[in-house]
């Protein structure tokens, strides 16, 4: 058994002992609504994918509390280095469903100009939510580098670097945590242990006794926390963040949770996730758990979820319609942003592409002169 005791705040009936979350009622409700927003976004994306309107999505059901709890411990001057499953953090910080849907449709208003797959978001405002990359773990040492810059400049900002259980096997995990330990970087590493890396359960991923213990290999203190307990995740993250701001270096947090959906819309988890496991975790759903707490504080009554959720759904649906109605990126977007300035050889290739379009028509997405 692990030396790291699982930290919880909320019991299943909503009790929180004498825990002080430091959150106002409005903030608590914002956390709650953010979880429902994740769920609404998820549900909508799934439908959009099933109906062929978008190509791909990544389900977040089950892990909303981890994302929202962690995000709630940050200031907007902090930086998030997210994994592809972390859009709840962006939603919490106020990124609009519309900006997110532009990405899901890869249209002309997408921050990534339609270059990335869906759910590979990039935002600078209202918080640095760093452009998501598909290769697993590469963002971990990058987050450490960004944190190092904060430290050198004497800022008290923090980099929150998030990844999955599978991500701990990546090269970036090893180099990132090792560098952060040596540099005492103001970084908080959030390992979302959601039970699976695509089809691989954690025991095929590592023989270690959980993931928190991996911090010891780097001299980094670690916390094991119940990932379905929003307040516990918030508290653990806040502890790591406080340590970082105080100049005391990094923290590793293992949030134990469960991926209730498939890995992605292309995945069929029934092939490898035992039904009993799903049932077990269904019981631990973070949303009703948090609702019980809100109810105990008089902030929630039966029926509120449906009301709020349908509000979220309306917002997301509108965003999706708007995004779908937005034109595709222009052909020029293939050729820009490779470098700050477009070099001659890329310019020529762009001109040839426009020329072909003029001469042979077809294929949509702009026409006329190559504009760069």
């Amino acid at each position: 058994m692990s030396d790291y005791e699982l930290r919880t705040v909320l019991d299943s009936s909503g009790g929180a002992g004498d825990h002080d979350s430091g959150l106002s009622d409005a903030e608590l409700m914002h956390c709650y609504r953010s979880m429902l927003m994740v769920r609404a976004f998820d549900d909508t994306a799934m439908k959009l994918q099933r109906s062929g309107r978008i190509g791909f999505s990544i389900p977040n059901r089950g892990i909303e509390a981890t994302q929202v709890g962690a995000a709630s411990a940050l200031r907007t001057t902090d930086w998030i280095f997210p994994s592809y499953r972390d859009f709840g953090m962006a939603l919490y910080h106020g990124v609009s469903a519309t900006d997110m849907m532009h990405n899901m449709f890869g249209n002309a208003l997408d921050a990534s100009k339609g270059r990335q797959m869906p759910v590979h978001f990039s935002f600078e405002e209202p918080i640095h939510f760093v452009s998501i990359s598909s290769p697993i773990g590469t963002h971990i040492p990058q987050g450490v580098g960004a944190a190092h810059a904060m430290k050198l400049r004497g800022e008290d900002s923090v980099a929150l670097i998030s990844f999955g259980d599978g991500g701990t096997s990546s090269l970036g995990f090893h180099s990132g945590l090792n560098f952060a330990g040596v540099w005492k970087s103001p970084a908080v590493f959030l390992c979302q242990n959601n039970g699976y890396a695509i089809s691989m359960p954690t025991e095929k991923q590592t023989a270690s006794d959980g993931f928190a213990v991996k911090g010891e290999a780097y001299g980094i203190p670690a916390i094991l926390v119940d990932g379905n307990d929003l307040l516990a995740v918030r508290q653990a993250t806040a502890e790591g963040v406080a340590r970082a701001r105080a100049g005391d270096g990094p923290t590793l947090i293992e949030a134990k949770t469960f991926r209730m959906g498939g890995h992605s819309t292309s995945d069929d988890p029934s092939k490898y996730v035992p039904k009993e496991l799903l049932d077990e975790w269904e019981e631990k759903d973070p949303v009703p758990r948090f609702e019980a707490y809100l109810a105990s504080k008089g902030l929630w009554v039966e029926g509120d979820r449906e009301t709020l959720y349908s509000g979220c759904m309306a917002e997301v649906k509108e965003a999706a319609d708007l995004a779908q109605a937005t034109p595709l990126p222009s052909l020029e977007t293939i050729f820009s942003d490779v470098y700050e300035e477009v070099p001659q050889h890329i310019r020529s290739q762009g001109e040839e592409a426009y020329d072909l379009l003029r001469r042979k028509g077809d294929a949509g997405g702009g026409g006329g002169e190559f504009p760069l």
Partner: protein
Amino acid sequence: MAILTLLQAVNEGLKTAMRDDSNVLVFGEDVGPKGGVFLATEGLTSEFGEERCFDTPLSEDGIVGAAIGMAMNGLRPVAEIQFQDFIFPAFDQIVSEAAKLRYRSGGQYTAPMVIRTPYGGGIRGGLYHSQSGEAYFCHTPGLKVVTPSTPHDAKGLLIAAIQDPDPVLFLEPKALYRSVKGEVPEGSYTVDLSTTRTVREGDAVTVFCYGAMVPVCEKAAEQAEESGISVEVIDLRTLYPLDEQGVLAAAKKTGRVVTVHEAPRFCGYAAEISAIIAERAIEYMEAPVTRVTGFDTPFPNTLEHHYLPDHRRVLDAIERVHAF
């Protein structure tokens, strides 16, 4: 003979090789019970057991590194990299180790192994699920680089790769996984790792291509034929070491060459084809040695159909070199 998709042919190739040689193992991320994200390894764990087809932790460096050690010590590992875009964490193991082990040990240690990986665009995968990195590996002496474009070749080249005494990177054009079907012989057979395949004969223009560009070039060639241009299409299929004599002969035959690939142009594979011709057959050339390739940018998502060479772009190049 059975009619199979290219994906089924890969699966058949793996099964055949595993039946024939108990030293053959298959492993990688999600290749076990799930059968791989494209299902190329479906049914292997149930037929051969977890000892011979199994999942590994999420580390391409570990997958390839372990494969090298197994190969050194008598096994015939077939490692899967889930997408070629994710092979880069293993680049050091491939380029510094697998490729150089025989040389640096004077032949004492060798790494007969296969790394299979889906590559190329056409599935709306954006920057990181679409790349064609063949040129990186073809610049690495000690490796062999192979890519099939038909189900027949997929099975036969794969079995040949598994039997080969040297490390082979086996690039599977994912756009063709389910979109091409063809006859595939039962049982074991090999396709030689040192020959090209003449897809169609012609005498006015020669088109070199491979992987998912082969059907694109065939279509362009058919359309060219309609306007009276006779096009020879050559599927290079073993990219490295290349059958240079075959390439030179096909180039000299028409004096007009177009090479097509998905990868970016600059320092891409087509550059080598052009260079070989410019160095050893320039006096036969009647037109600019032409390339049709992906652009020198990362791979986009929404607009991938503009990025990927299509039959229109290839046809345009054929017409240009023909009219020159």
